[in-house]
Structures are given as C-alpha cells and as structure tokens.
C-alpha cells in the first residue's frame, strides 16, 4: 500500500500559496471540503482562482474566503446565494467566469483523464461560446472547451482509506470525484478514515491513484441550504 495519509489539514495544504488555482468539490453546501476551506481562511492565501460549481453563502463555504477578499477569480456555474459575491462582482473586485454545469464537470474530468479539451453542445450559439472554436459533428454544432489546470483539488468524501481510496455519500458526491486527479495535488478529506482492506474494493468510487493526500476531517457542520420537509399524513 502506498500511504497517502497526512496528519492534519495544515500538512494537507503544504505548498499552497498566493496566486494559485484551486478546484473545490461540492454542490451548494453539500459535499464541500469544509476543513480545507477553514484552513485556506486561516492561512489567508490571496489572489486565488477557485473552480467550484457554487461560491457558498455569505458565512459558509467559499463565502468565507470571499469575506476576506482572498479570491480574485471564480469559475462557477451558479452563484446566486451570496450577497458579498454579488457586491464584489458588481464592483469589479472579483472576476467571474460562468460555465455551464455539465461543461464545468467535463473540463475537470478532461484534466483528470488526460484530454486537453472536449467538444460539448452546451452553450453553442450563446455568449459562452464566444471566441471559442466550434465544429459540426453529425449535423450538430459543438463548442471546444479546454481542460482546466489547477494546482490543488480539495475534495470531500464520506469514507476513505490510507491508500487514498474514496467512497462518497448521496448527492454529496457531485463534483468531488471528477476533481480527483484533475490538479497537481489532490487533497481528500474524509468523515471516516480507515485502514487499507476495510473498504470493499467493489465499492470504491475513486481509486487512490487520483489522490495525493488524505486526512481525517473534523467538526463537519454539513449545513443545509434549503430545508424542505413534508407533513406526515394523519390517518
């Protein structure tokens, strides 16, 4: 077994510095790497480019980095829930690159799998395709989208072992698997870190080869963004 464990989050983020490009997993606040985000806030790294489907809310997730003006550029598909984000975007302090959600996933996965670019129909004929190469295949138009390049990918899994194998839970999986191996260093934080052999190899979602560092995360808040419930039917 090649041991990927690091002792804690600060060891996991060793080598991260100002001006870097990071990928961060999660959809909304579900499946976000809470520990890595807290450490990025503590380190107060600046001039960051963050590739993440969303930008958190004002006081949680990537919103915490926005509050401290650590992010220069966000690459996201949807950024609707964050007032500070809106303020920085409108004032020009924050550069925003909006990318269709499926294209965002594909550009991460392309980096993971060694494709320099992919063709997607998403965004053809819209401003997203402006300045990009387009091409017809079988009578349909596609846009050439290049793979992302990132220094670190921060992902969150449910369970992991010391070899870096990961299992995700529910819809907290989202962007996390496609960001594994899509950056120079992939850091995985897990709710439960176990010994090699404890996870069934049949159930592994991401093999450890895509992960450079893994650690046991702490104090997960797992905040719910929209708590929706139904009433129990009374008989």
């Amino acid at each position, binding site marked *: 077994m090649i041991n990927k464990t690091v002792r804690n989050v600060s060891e996991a983020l060793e080598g991260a510095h100002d001006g870097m490009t990071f990928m961060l997993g999660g959809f909304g*606040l579900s499946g976000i790497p809470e520990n890595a985000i807290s450490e990025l806030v503590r380190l107060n790294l600046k001039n960051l480019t963050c590739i993440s489907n969303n930008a958190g809310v004002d006081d949680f997730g990537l919103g915490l980095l926005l509050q401290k003006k650590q992010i220069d550029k966000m690459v996201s598909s949807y950024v609707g829930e964050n007032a500070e984000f809106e303020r920085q975007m409108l004032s020009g302090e924050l550069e925003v690159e909006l990318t269709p959600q499926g294209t965002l996933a594909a550009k991460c996965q392309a980096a993971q799998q060694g494709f320099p670019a992919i063709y997607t129909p998403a965004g053809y004929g819209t*401003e997203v395709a402006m300045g990009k190469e387009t091409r017809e295949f079988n009578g349909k138009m596609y846009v050439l989208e290049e793979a992302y390049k990132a220094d670190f990918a921060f992902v969150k899994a449910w369970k992991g072992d010391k070899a870096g194998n990961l299992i995700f839970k529910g819809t907290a999986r989202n962007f996390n698997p496609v960001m594994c191996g899509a950056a120079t260093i992939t850091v995985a934080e897990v709710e439960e870190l176990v010994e090699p052999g404890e996870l069934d190899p049949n159930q592994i979602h991401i093999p450890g080869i895509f992960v450079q560092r893994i650690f046991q995360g702490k104090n997960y808040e797992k905040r719910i963004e929209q708590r929706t419930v139904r009433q129990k039917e009374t008989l």
Partner: protein
Amino acid sequence: MGFWGLNLQIIKMLDKNGIAKRIAQEVKDGYYVNLGIGIPTLVANFVRDDIEVEFQSENGILGMGPFPFEGEEDPDLINAGKQTITALPGASYFDSAMSFGMIRGQHVDLTILGAMEVAENGDIANWKIPGKMVKGMGGAMDLVASAENIIVAMMHTNREGESKLLKKCSLPLTGVGCVTKIVTNLAVLEVTDKGFKLLERAPGVSVEEIKEATEGTLIVEGEIPEMAI
C-alpha cells in the same frame, strides 16, 4: 363589475399548478425526466400514479422522491435547487460528469424547464437579464443543448403584460432552436419550422386572446380544442 370581472380572470387562465397539471400529461410510462426549478418542480405532484417515471436531478440522483419528513432531512441528499429530498427504492447516485453524461447522451427522455423568453424558432432565454445580477446558467445550457424533448413551462406574458413568445429573443440566449413544446397559462403550443403552432387553449381562453398575447408567428389551424385538465 369589479368583483365579477376579477373572478372571470381567475377562472379563465391557468395558475402555476394548472400549467404543471397539463405538462404532467406529457410524462409517459417509462420516462426519465429532468425537472427545472419553479413551475416544473410542481409537475411531479400531478404525474399519474399508474405509470412508472424516474426523476433525475442533475446534481446527481435518479429516482428522486418527495421532501423528507421533518427530522429526517439529510445534508448529503439534496436536489438541484439545494432542497432536502428523499430517494425512492431503485434510486442511484452519481457524480456530476456522469449526470451530465446522461443529459448530453440523450438518455433523459424529457426535460421540463422555465423560461423568460422563447422564440418561434425554438431559441430559449432563461439565465440572464442585462443590467441585473447574473446568477449563472447552472445546468440549463447543458440541458437545452442536449435534450431532444424540451417542454417550457411559463406564463404567456411577463409582469408588464408583454409577450414571452417572440419572433426573436431579446435576452441573452441559453440555447438555440431547442424548445419543442410550450405550456403557458393560456395555451399549449408546438414549435414548428413556421412558428408557434397552437395546439390547445386554456379553459375559457379564446384564440383571439392567445393571438393578442403572442408576439411571434402563431399558426392556428382549424378548431383549437380546450385543454382537458
């Protein structure tokens, strides 16, 4: 007069639930369906219970169920609107690349989404209003560029009373030539090579009223039936 006039308005056109109810009739046995946020979400409430349908939420679930009971909410189980949900027996979870692989690969049979504007050639605009805070397109551009069967659920006119069914979209586009059908509070329309073809009228709404509320080319052939809902 005021009272009766008002009452007449309410009877005449569909409300959001009425639109959802009509769209639910388009959902067939064995369909995998992606529902957008807003009116489309309501469609799930009106699908016949004698057919088998699976709902896909693009953040990574097939077989999405209703909201959980209070106390059973799971932060690791949400839909594309970030709402807490449940998973039905036979459900599956997957990552974002696979989710959009299902969409792009046209494995999802029906996509239902809202719109700000639809043009008579099937162009759709639903993500950006110049001068206003842009929240992003989310998965909308992937959905409209990929799906073969796209139904738009929307009001026929905007708050200012202007038509949302246009010759050409004025807002930045989400996708080109992609919408196949539109269900509004006034009518059911099909997008054809020649324009919006009127298929059905909402209860109590006349063809004239639909013509008046439609800026794009409206094709009316023969008797137009009233929706059966």
